[in-house]
């Protein structure tokens, strides 16, 4: 396996590298299922969680993954730190470097922040992108792929396999979604077929570097594609500086997942959502709590996948 130093984009992963991480995650899931959920693997290493943007599950998930691998964890939230006194990313990064951080998990509102940190030379450790603006969120893509792979091939029978021939429909705010971008890239890498369904205002005309078919009619797309998994995206009100659709009620009716559309899915199809959900907007409560829904499964798989990423990037010393 080629040596991976950082995880900045889903595009950093070759098919073999992605499958290797998913396979390690499979073993980590075994660790997370037993009574003593702890490995000594990253003993004596320090990981900093650098969160400039709000997050619940990603931050907790990373923290849990780091602790289960016995790393020392420092949580840094921009609020309440010197960033609110005007400290730059550079000075923050150099401070962390001086304290000897072996890896930095960064979430930032600006697209490319993780890339900047990795290429700047300010910091020597591994950089893991935990979401940068509207750009990428590679660990989310890995955990989604892991969830699909586990449901498709079965627990214990997934090792070494890709997602060849699996059809995934990604619905909603594709334009602002780093989850959609990273997912589409990784799904392409793993051999799955990607479809976007969105209002024309919320989907790029020609997504660069992604093989995906674009549909504007949700019902027609479901009928034509017969997807194995449907991924609902969160409407990101905080990134919308213009009105992209007439009203929430209309969005919900035309692009939302409700019990009728749920019933139209083929049996066993996965209904995914990266969270946090806007219940009643892109997904109804009924659909979110249905047996097809993998929302909570995605959260627990997130810990296993992030342990696998940390192991892959950190368990080797580089010269």
């Amino acid at each position, binding site marked *: 396996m080629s040596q991976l130093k950082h995880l900045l984009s889903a595009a950093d992963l070759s098919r073999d590298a992605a499958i290797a991480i998913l396979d390690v995650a499979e073993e980590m899931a*075994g660790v997370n299922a037993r009574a003593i959920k*702890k*490995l000594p693997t990253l003993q004596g290493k320090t990981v900093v969680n650098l969160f400039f943007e709000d997050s619940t599950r990603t931050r907790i998930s990373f923290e849990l993954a780091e602790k289960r691998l016995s790393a020392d964890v420092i949580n840094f939230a921009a609020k309440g730190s010197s960033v609110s006194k005007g400290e730059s990313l550079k000075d923050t990064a150099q401070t962390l470097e001086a304290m000897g951080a072996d890896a930095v998990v960064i979430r930032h509102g600006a697209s490319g922040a993780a890339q900047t940190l990795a290429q700047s030379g300010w910091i020597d450790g591994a950089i893991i992108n935990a979401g940068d603006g509207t750009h990428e969120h590679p660990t989310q893509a890995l955990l989604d792929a892991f969830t699909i792979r586990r449901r498709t091939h079965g627990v214990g029978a997934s090792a070494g396999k890709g997602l060849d021939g699996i059809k995934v429909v990604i619905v909603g705010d594709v334009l602002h979604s780093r989850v959609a971008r990273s997912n589409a890239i990784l799904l392409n890498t793993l051999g799955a077929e990607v479809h976007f369904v969105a209002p024309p205002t919320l989907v790029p005309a020609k997504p660069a570097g992604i093989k995906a078919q674009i549909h504007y009619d949700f019902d027609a797309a479901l009928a034509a594609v017969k997807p194995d998994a449907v991924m609902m995206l969160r409407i990101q009100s905080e990134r919308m500086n213009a009105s992209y659709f007439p009203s929430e009620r209309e969005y919900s009716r035309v692009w939302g997942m409700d019990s009728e559309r749920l019933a139209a899915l083929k049996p066993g199809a996965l209904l995914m959502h990266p969270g946090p959900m806007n219940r009643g907007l892109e997904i109804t409560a009924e659909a979110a709590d249905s047996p097809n829904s993998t929302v909570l499964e995605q959260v627990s798989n997130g810990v296993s996948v992030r342990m696998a990423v940390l192991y892959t990037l950190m368990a*080797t010393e580089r010269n």
Partner: protein
Amino acid sequence: MPSRTVLTSGDIDRAITRIAHEIVESNHGTKNLILLGVPTRGVQLAKRIAAVIERHYPEFDASGSVGRLDITMYRDDLSLHPNRPVTETNIPASGIDGGAVVLVDDVLFSGRTIRAALDALNAHGRPSVVRLAVLVDRGHRELPIRADFVGKNLPTSRDERISVNLSETDGENCVVIES
């Protein structure tokens, strides 16, 4: 590279049969006996030992008493070696609490693998006793660890390489020493 065969297929079979009997003897029967192989070849050896025990003691359920214990995450040299692949860990469904666990590996050398295996075992439960069976003990221990059941003691120099070949993974059965 000059190489010579130190154990033939027949030697390996006889060593496994003897180890199987020694294990049952020291355990005063097959009660609570669990064999855990250390990947890769320890797993095959554990299965072979269990098959011999089952043949002589029909009350012993070989398939339900053999597992594999991956120790990659517990190594103390993870930072010195290139990324090692993690493989599956499989503990018998009955668990190891209170059991008589026999760790099985192909070659005992520095003892560091076994130290890691003992740590890994901790995370799965508390056996009443842990023993160690190896096909070849080549010396050069770096830790105070010794094997309870040994197929063959093989004094070697540090630069020599021992390669254990088993039909399941390597297509033939033999132990070869290369210098």
